[in-house]
């Protein structure tokens, strides 16, 4: 039995396999299909102060080795999460990372304050790939100066719990954004969110997604994600959580070797609901087989000589 524990700021995870926001519901949906205590943590669907209905249908479609979604951040809202979901999640013994977002900086701060105060929420993950209402629709995660300010403002209201900031890959260079999170006092970075993409139904000549553009995820984006995660790791000292197209132990190892302290599995949860538990088990078996005492011994071992 290898030591699979990793640290994300003050939080110790029992292993580095996390299920990603928007692909794991509120965790409870998986209760019949796996043991959600056995994975490092899970990220909730992105939460906002008020519940949201999300975008119009259709809002998903398939692409080569991937999918596009334009769910539009549908969620039950923070009140319902606290009242209806969290007690059951706590009972299930899961480690919870509350993913959240807002339309304005004030929304973000208030959401973080609320979530940080909840017993059973172990860390916060801030999704900054949302249009900023105050700044005319530019994404919060699209300007490093603003991102640093937002991070600092949010960190102030959740001093006791790790604040992970989730970066958008739809930028020319991710490094200034990683640096902005660190400078703003963020405890960790997670990367990447979805790439912007589009798909057309040739028969109807309509976009397959009602809102035309959506977010590309799945194995197709893995090389892009790995490159950006590696760049973040080279830029900051705080832990980086790797996300994008992970579907096998080798995929997870690629991110750990590149320097990620933990990984998140998104789209592949749809294909294989128990995948995170399987990967955690396989990671343990791998470490034993390879005589690796601590999973942290794998992190940042890329050889580029």
């Amino acid at each position, binding site marked *: 039995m290898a030591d699979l524990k990793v640290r994300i700021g003050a939080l110790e995870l029992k292993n580095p396999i996390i299920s990603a926001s928007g692909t794991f519901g509120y965790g409870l949906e*998986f209760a019949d299909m796996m043991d959600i205590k056995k994975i490092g943590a899970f990220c909730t*669907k992105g939460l906002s102060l008020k519940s949201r209905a999300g975008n119009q249908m259709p809002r998903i479609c398939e692409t080569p*080795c991937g*999918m596009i979604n334009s*769910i539009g951040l549908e969620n039950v809202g923070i009140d319902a999460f606290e009242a209806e979901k969290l007690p059951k999640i706590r009972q299930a013994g899961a480690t919870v990372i509350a993913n959240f977002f807002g339309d304005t900086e004030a929304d973000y701060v208030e959401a973080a304050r609320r979530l940080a105060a909840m017993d059973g929420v172990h860390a916060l993950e801030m999704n900054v790939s949302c249009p900023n209402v105050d700044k005319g629709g530019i994404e919060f995660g699209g300007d490093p100066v603003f991102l640093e300010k937002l991070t600092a403002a949010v960190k102030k209201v959740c001093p006791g719990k790790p604040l992970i900031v989730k970066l958008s890959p739809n930028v020319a260079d991710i490094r200034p954004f990683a640096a902005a999170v660190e400078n703003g006092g963020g405890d960790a970075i997670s990367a990447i969110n979805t790439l912007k993409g589009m798909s057309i139904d040739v028969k109807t000549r309509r976009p397959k997604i009602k809102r035309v553009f959506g977010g590309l995820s799945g194995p197709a984006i893995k090389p892009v994600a790995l490159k950006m995660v590696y760049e973040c790791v080279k830029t900051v000292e705080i832990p980086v959580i790797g996300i994008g197209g992970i579907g096998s132990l080798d995929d997870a190892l690629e991110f750990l070797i590149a320097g990620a302290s933990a990984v998140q599995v998104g789209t592949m949860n749809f*294909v294989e609901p128990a995948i995170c538990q399987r990967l955690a088990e396989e990671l343990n078996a791998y470490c034993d087989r390879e005589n690796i005492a601590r999973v942290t011994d794998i992190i940042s071992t890329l050889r580029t000589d």
Partner: protein
Amino acid sequence: MKSNIITSREVKRGYFRMEFEFAGEALPGQFIMLKVAEHNDPLLRRPMSIAGLDGGVMSVIFKVVGRGTALLAEKKAGDHIDVLGPFGSAFTPPKTDAVLLVAGGIGVAPLLFWAKRNPSRRAAAFIGGATENDILCSDEFSEAHVATENGSVGRKGLVTAPLIEHAAYKNKTGYILACGPTGMLKAIDQLAVKDGLRGELSLEERMGCGFGVCLGCVCDTTGGRKRMCVEGPVFKTGEVLWRT
């Protein structure tokens, strides 16, 4: 869950019926999610209504419409298939009502399962399709009324024509269970509401997961936004707020 395929054969041109081992329980109206290949292209599972489950053998009936179903059609007895489920809501007609089963094309699958599970109930099936080739399993129902758009078998026209002429429809004692293309379901929904019949509709939508977490399959209902894979695919007539 990896299941052993027992048989798979083309029952009509482009339509396949596959049987495989299944160790669990399931209710008519529910569906399963099938992985059509071991690789990731195509990536997502495909939803299929359960067409039968008896003695540890589950069956599905499917139409080849794209790459996923084409891959499914290549599978043979002895191959394995990865099955997840069952998922979703089931048909729950009141115990005593006469049941009107309305199927459009491949929509016959879950209705057949219901009929098999309820052999002693009064039920009439109305089976519609574009041509004779699209009429499936009509001989497996005790009472079946067939309609084709081109008249190649049964009545010429839409399946709603024999439906509304049926005694149990006219006297409003019939309870409708319908599955088929969205246009047909919408038409039946509007008819049922207008004519004062109750019933249930099994809807279709692209599904990312099948178990309620991707939120890719929602539809609006009188009870708010619902996930077709958890709160559906079976909804009550009058409940769905049709998109178009």
